[in-house]
Structures are given as C-alpha cells and as structure tokens.
C-alpha cells in the first residue's frame, strides 16, 4: 500500500509536517529543498507522485514541471502554492500538473487529493469500459445508468457525474473543493454550501429506503462513498 512520494518544498516546517503525515499513512517520502535538486531526483521516474511547491529557490515549481513533462516523465504532480487566484490555479494546471492545492490547506484535503492521484495511476485502464460497483450499487458509465439493489435510480446528469466521481474514488475521502473542481470544473471557492446541498440531494436518492448508507460525511474533510 505504501508509495514513493517526492516532496519538493523549501519550507522546512511544511515539509516536516507533510512528511510526518504521509509517513503515518504508510507512504515513504523523499524530500528535495530546491527546484534543481527536485528535478534531478524526479527524472529517474521511480516515484508514484510528486508534491511540488510553486515558489522554490534555484528553479521555480512551474519550470520544474515543464522540464519534467518535456522529458516525458508523466508522474502525477500535485502543486502546492500560496498563489491563490483563479488565474494562478489555471496556469498551474495548464503547465501539466494533475492537481493544484492552495496554501494554507488542511492535511485532510491534501491527503484526499494525494490518494485520488495515486488511485488514478493505479487504474490506468479506460474508465468507460468498466462497470463500477460499490456494495449493492452498480454504475454503467456507457449508458450512464445507476442501479442499487437491482432498482434503477433516476439521477439528473450532474447527480450522475457526482456519483461516478465518488465511485471512482471509492473508500477515499473526497473534499468539497475536489468536487467543485472535478465535477463542475470550477476553480473558485464559493461562499455558500452549494456543494453540500448537491451531495445531500444525491444522498437522498441513493440511500433513502436502504438500510445501509453508502455516502458518508467525513467530518472536517468531506465525503466518502463506501459500502
């Protein structure tokens, strides 16, 4: 279960906090404190994930990322940055990162994203070919039909996308921001609980009338779909 993660971060405090947390989750963490060193270590391609700070000495994060992608190293990259504007986030994603997390962040948020990225690397098959199932829930991505306990659920298109995303991250915490980014493709932070309202609607359709709930709220972090 443990994975190799390269952490390129020059702030000692953040680095040790992250290393400790990720070690507790069973991952091994190698650390680089400047962009050049980080790029050097990353080029052997042996890591499962790279966590990259954007502002680094010697070589900045985006340059490291561009160099990696130019060298055809496709290790998933999660950018950490204090640059929080929508434009900064878009720029980071356009440079070839797989995710972008704004500082300060909660460790739960980081962990959720790290797990989602590691998971994506694990299942590199065409996702639409597979039927997804979680407990007695079955999802057919081709026809976009959902059944629970054999009974067809009537979902709106967005509710379906939401559920499919949950199902692809089965057993892992999914945060509100991840949902907004992945399901709606918006990168701003809404000032309302709009995501929660959607999730609770989905939950009503999914879990009402069933003894065992599938969609769980993880306090202080987000949600999780698990049997």
């Amino acid at each position: 279960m443990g994975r190799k993660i390269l952490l390129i971060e020059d702030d000692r405090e953040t680095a040790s906090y992250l290393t400790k947390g990720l070690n507790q989750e069973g991952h091994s963490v190698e650390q680089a404190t400047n962009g050049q060193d980080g790029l050097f270590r990353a080029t052997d391609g042996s890591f499962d994930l790279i966590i990259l700070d954007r502002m680094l000495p010697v070589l900045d994060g985006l340059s490291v990322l561009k160099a990696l992608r130019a060298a055809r190293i496709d290790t998933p990259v999660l950018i950490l940055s204090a640059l929080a504007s929508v434009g900064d986030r878009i720029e980071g994603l356009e440079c070839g990162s797989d995710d972008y997390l704004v500082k300060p962040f909660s460790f739960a948020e980081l962990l959720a994203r790290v797990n989602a990225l590691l998971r994506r690397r694990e299942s590199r098959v065409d996702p639409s070919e597979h039927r997804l199932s979680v407990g007695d829930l079955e999802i057919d991505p081709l026809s976009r039909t959902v059944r629970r306990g054999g009974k067809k659920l009537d979902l709106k298109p967005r509710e379906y996308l939401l559920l499919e995303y949950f199902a692809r991250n089965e057993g892992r915490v999914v945060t509100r921001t991840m949902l907004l980014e992945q399901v709606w493709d918006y990168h701003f932070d809404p000032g309302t609980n709009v995501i929660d309202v959607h999730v609770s609607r989905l939950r009503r359709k999914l879990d009402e009338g069933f003894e065992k709930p599938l969609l769980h709220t993880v306090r202080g972090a987000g949600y999780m779909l698990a049997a």
Partner: protein
Amino acid sequence: MPTTLRIALLAGLLALLSNLAVIGFIYFRTHDEAVVTVHQQVLEQAKVLTDVYRSGGKPALDDAIGDTMTYGDPQTVIALIAPRGGELMGNLETRPATVLPRQEGYRNTLIRLRGQTTPREAALVIHRLPTGNWLVSGRIAGEGFAIRDTLERSLLIALVVAALLGLFCGLILANYVGQRIGDIATVADRIGARDLSRRVPLSGAGDAFDRLGEQINAMLDRITGLMEELRLLTDSLAHDLRSPVSRLRSAAHAAAEAEDPSEQEELLGSVIRQADALMRILTAVLEISRSEALTGRKQFNWFDVGELAAELAEMYDPLAEEKGARLEFDRPTRPVPLFGHRQLLAQAVSNLIENAIRYGASGGEIRVRVHPGERRIRIEVGDRGPGIPANRRAEARRRFGRLDSSRSDEGAGLGLALAESIAHLHEGRLMLDDNRPGLLTMLELPVHAQQARAA
C-alpha cells in the same frame, strides 16, 4: 547652459534670421538691375576716359571731355578739377565747393550741374590723374539713389537692432516659459516629496500651459482618488478582518479551555471554519486586485455564455430551493459566444446568484437571464427580495460594503466588488437596478471588434 538662456538665444536667432530674410528681400528689391546698369555704365565710362588719357595724354582727354559735353546725353557728368578744387573743364558746378571729397573711387553723391540750381543725385567715379588733377565722370541717377543709400545704411542698423530686440524678446519669452514650467516643476517636485495636495496654478488664459496644468491636476486628482480608495480599502480590510480574526481567536480560546472532548472538537471545527472564511476574504481581495490590474487576459478563451449561465443556474437551483426560492433560467435560443475568462466570469455570475439567494430568497423567485446583443452581452440576475434603494447602491458595490453591518453571516461584502472588477477585466461593467420589486444585478460585457473579427 540653463534652459532659459538657450530659449532666449534660440528666439534671438530666429528673430535675426527672419529679419535677415526681410531685410534681404528689401535689399534685393531696391538694389535692382537698373542700379547695376548705371553702376557699370559709370565704371566703363571712367575706364574709357582713363584709357584715352593714358594713350593720348591731356590733349586727347580734353577732346574726349569736350566731345562728351557736346554730344553725350544730358545725364552725363564729366569734369576735370584742379588739385585744390576749381574746375578746369566740364559740366560740374564746383562753386560753392561741392561736397566732393578728394578721394578716388566710386560713390553716389549729390552734385549740381552747371547752370542748374537743384542738386541731383549722381553716380561718380573720381580718378586722380598723374598731374594731380581729378577726373570726375559719372551719370545723374534717379531720385532713388540717395534714398537707397540711406536705406542700405538703415537696413544695417535695423539688422543690429533686430538682433538685439530678438535677444531681448527671447529673454522675456524664456523667462515667461521658464516661470510657467517652473510652476509645474514645483508641483512635480512636491509630488516627488510625497505631497499630493499641490496643484499647478492656472493662468486662466486657456493656453497650452494651462491645458498641461489641467491635465496634470486631473491626473493628480485621479491619483489622489486612487490612493484614497487604496487607503480606504486597506483600512477597511484591516477593520473587516478584525471581526473574523477575533471570532477565530475566541473560538480557539474556547477550544483550548473546553474540557469535554466532543465540545472541544466542535469548537476546533469552528476555528477551522473561521480560518477558511478569512482565507476566502483574502483570496477575494487578491482576485479583485488581479482583475483590476487586468492580469489574466492571456487566459481568455471562447465560450458560450448561455451555457455557462445554464450550468450555474443548475448548480445553484437546489440551494435556492432550500432557501425557499425558485431559480428560473431563461435559456437563450442560440449560443452566445464570448471571448473571456470563463472561470472568473463563472465566479462573477455565481457571486450575483449567491447574493440574490442570500438577500433576496424571501421574494420567492430568482431569475437568471442572458441577453445576447450585437455589441454587448448582458447577464442578469433578478430577485424579488427587499432590493437596495437607489441612494445606497454605490455603497453596496464597494469593497466590504455590506449594507447591514450588524449581520455577521458568511458574506464578506466582497461579492459585488469582485463581480465588478471581473466585469472591468472584460471592459464591461456591473449595474444594479430596481427589479420592481427586488434587486436586479447585471453584468454588461462588450463584444469587441477584435472578437467579432476572430469570430
């Protein structure tokens, strides 16, 4: 060399040059061909006479003088004069002793011909013969000769005077310009010394200096306004951060004091929520200043505004319903393409919708519309809530301009300000209007010529 002196010299030089041109013109007009002809005739005649003298001596000269007097034209002047004055022969009246100075050479002068009373202007060549006698030959010229002579002298004087006057005027001009520019420079100096209260004094003449001064003053007013705005923003940012920070602090304090673990967990959750709210405020402030600085234009792309609004309406529909309002979306009949920042516009529109839900849900209906226009696209969000009276709308769109400051809900009062700055990024504007009843917020975005071409 000081600027004043340089300007003075330049003005003097220009005056001199233009005077030279005028004087030269006068000179050439008066010193015309006739004058040149007379001059040459006189010289030739004198040469012939001296040649006669050289080859034939005095008798030949006497003959020639006699011939000239007999047969020559009446305008001819010819005379042989003794060394001490006193005419030996010829038609020149020498008594009273004429002004003829005993000097060789060509000259224009007044003389009297024998038997005439009025002196006349003549061009003469005076030549001293080896015997000591003076040979005078020449022609009576027109009246103009003397005048011309005087004129030439006068022109020379005029030239000198003009040069001096030019320099003098130049000095006055330079002094004037220097003073006017000095006024402006003084103000610029004060600005350099961080005093923005000074203004350029205006002469009221409405000249170029006044215009320059007016522009500088207008610029200073604008800068002062912006600085004032910035100061207000910083002040209100500091002020508005006080309440969330103090809430955060008291929540953290309470969590530290709490003894029951579940209560403590609850309080810590609140600490995190307060911190998140703070982060949201800071991000919004950052986003506003980014948009106002027009960064982010390189992330512009084509997208369908109708589609975007539809997505957002769908996204907020459940939230509106939960707050007791119906969210209606009037889908435009055809795509509404716009070249812009999709993510930021999504945020702007979502701010308007969130605003409507937060303050206008009580009205029961929220309506989102997209008006595709030839030249501008308008995105409207209308609610049926209490609305904002016309005289308080400016306040509502200001950063941190929350109208009911006693409310401590999630709204940081940045929603409308952010929407407005995003409109500015797209060269558009945010408008607030009466929805009769309720509040109508509109984002008006121009469809530019460049966009039209790209389409």
